[in-house]
């Protein structure tokens, strides 16, 4: 197996851009990623595109904008984890020696309102069971029941996310909010209020990967980030969990795989991106990743433990809640943020102390992807 590095990343700001086409969104993101990597487009040998709500084959249009070089272009649809899957496929292709330079693109344009997660004529949809925040909300109710956590603790995560987003010029929401505003916003699915939901968004993200042996042709190693490990999966059948059941069994299982492959332990991780489509998710996932003890996560985050200058900085770019969540673009955007952090290029939101190890967790209807990175 060969060592694979991330050479560069780029973003189109996340937000609402109804007037822009997919190519309008991806062009600046891909251009920034290529320039950041020092890689000319002619050197890209394969491209993987993560997207959800786009016409068939849209990946060809966004990549071919840079030139008709005839490379394979793969369209990946895996709901909210589409572009982390695209990234994993690119990583595997290089690791296995099939290619040396790959481009990963994530892009999305979304309508306002709750997303549709299943066929609209299905029984579950008609009977009000297909509610994106309700899965998180039901786990939050279990968590509060078991551990005595409060709605205020979950609301404080939104305050932290918006504070980080205010430091990110690419974030959809760049305005801090107070806990009073979060709690007073409209209830969506108890205990989750509107300001604890990730928005629907338009946006794009891009990454350039290369084999370490070829990366020297394009930039110096101080700009690289090594892909140290990966883990991917979907939910397995769970026995009746009873009173003590794991709220995130898939993340628990995959974290063990990730840490073993990367040769790291939770204490080694300096900066984290987790999939916080709704605020309670940040808590469950930090606990499942072993970054905080079970039952302590809500209090830990509420008391500043996951702040940029806290012991476990989480979602430093504002996360899905504040940076925004254009579904197909989110996974690669998380990786762009880790690249900025490990290079020390994150500006006002830079994690202090020269972080060396970063981890991403991206999940959704399509499954869970986790990646570990080393400077």
């Amino acid at each position, binding site marked *: 197996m060969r060592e694979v590095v991330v050479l560069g990343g780029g973003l189109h700001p996340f937000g609402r851009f109804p007037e822009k086409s997919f190519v309008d969104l991806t062009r600046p993101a891909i251009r920034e990623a290529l320039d950041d990597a020092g890689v000319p487009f002619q050197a890209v040998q394969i491209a993987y595109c993560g997207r959800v709500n786009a016409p068939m084959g849209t990946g060809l249009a966004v990549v071919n904008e840079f030139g008709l070089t005839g490379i394979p272009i793969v369209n990946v649809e895996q709901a909210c984890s589409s572009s982390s899957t695209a990234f994993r496929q690119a990583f595997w292709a290089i690791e296995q020696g099939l290619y040396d330079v790959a481009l990963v693109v994530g892009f999305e344009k979304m309508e306002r309102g709750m*997303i549709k997660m299943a066929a609209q004529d299905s029984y*579950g949809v*008609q009977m*009000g*069971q*297909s*509610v994106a925040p309700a899965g998180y909300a039901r786990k939050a109710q279990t968590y509060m029941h078991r551990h005595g956590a409060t709605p205020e603790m979950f609301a404080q995560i939104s305050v932290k996310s918006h504070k980080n987003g205010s430091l990110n010029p690419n974030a959809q929401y760049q305005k801090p909010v107070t806990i009073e505003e979060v709690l007073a916003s*409209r209830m*969506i699915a108890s205990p*989750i209020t509107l300001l604890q939901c990730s928005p629907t968004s338009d946006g794009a993200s891009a990454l350039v990967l290369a084999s370490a042996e070829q990366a020297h042709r394009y930039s110096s190693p101080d700009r690289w980030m090594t892909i140290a490990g990966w883990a991917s999966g979907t939910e397995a059948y769970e026995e009746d969990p009873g009173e003590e059941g794991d709220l995130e069994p898939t993340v628990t299982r995959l974290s063990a795989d990730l840490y073993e492959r990367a040769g790291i332990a939770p204490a080694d991780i300096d900066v984290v991106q987790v999939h916080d489509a709704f605020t309670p998710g940040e808590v469950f996932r930090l606990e499942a990743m072993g970054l905080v003890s079970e039952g302590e996560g809500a209090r830990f985050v509420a008391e500043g433990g996951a702040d940029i200058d806290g012991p476990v900085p989480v979602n430093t770019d504002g996360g899905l809640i504040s940076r925004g969540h254009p579904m197909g673009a989110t996974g690669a955007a998380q990786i762009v943020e880790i690249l900025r952090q490990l290079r020390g290029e994150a500006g006002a939101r830079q994690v202090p102390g020269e972080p060396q190890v970063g981890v991403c967790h991206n999940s959704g209807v399509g499954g869970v992807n986790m990646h570990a990175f080393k400077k």
Partner: protein
Amino acid sequence: MPTAEPIDANVFTFEADELCIKAAECAACGARFHPPRQYCARCASREMRARVADPAGKIETFTIVHQRPPGSLVEPPYTLADVQLRSGERFSCVSLDTAGMTIGASVQLRVAAFDTDSGPRAGLVFDLVPEGEANA
């Protein structure tokens, strides 16, 4: 008594006017599912037996939904719960009530009618069973 045709007759039917909640039991490992599955999610066996689920159970966890999701016939606010029936099936179900919901509370399933473009159709909902009335 049936009030309307089921939204999905694979979920429940009426047999001699009695509610029949459809379930499946794995012949290999005994796992039970509602709605019924063709193959076992637990052990991947293809040998499944049709069963009728017990309409009594308990709330594993719940949320009160305040915004109508796309395609839903249920008027918010309503309760969306993970329910476990006494016969072992675990699944999502709504209640048209929102007051008094607690983890572990006893529930009883019934059908309710919902207006659709093609007339009234029936779906499964649950009601809380008042404390002291739950059968052991």
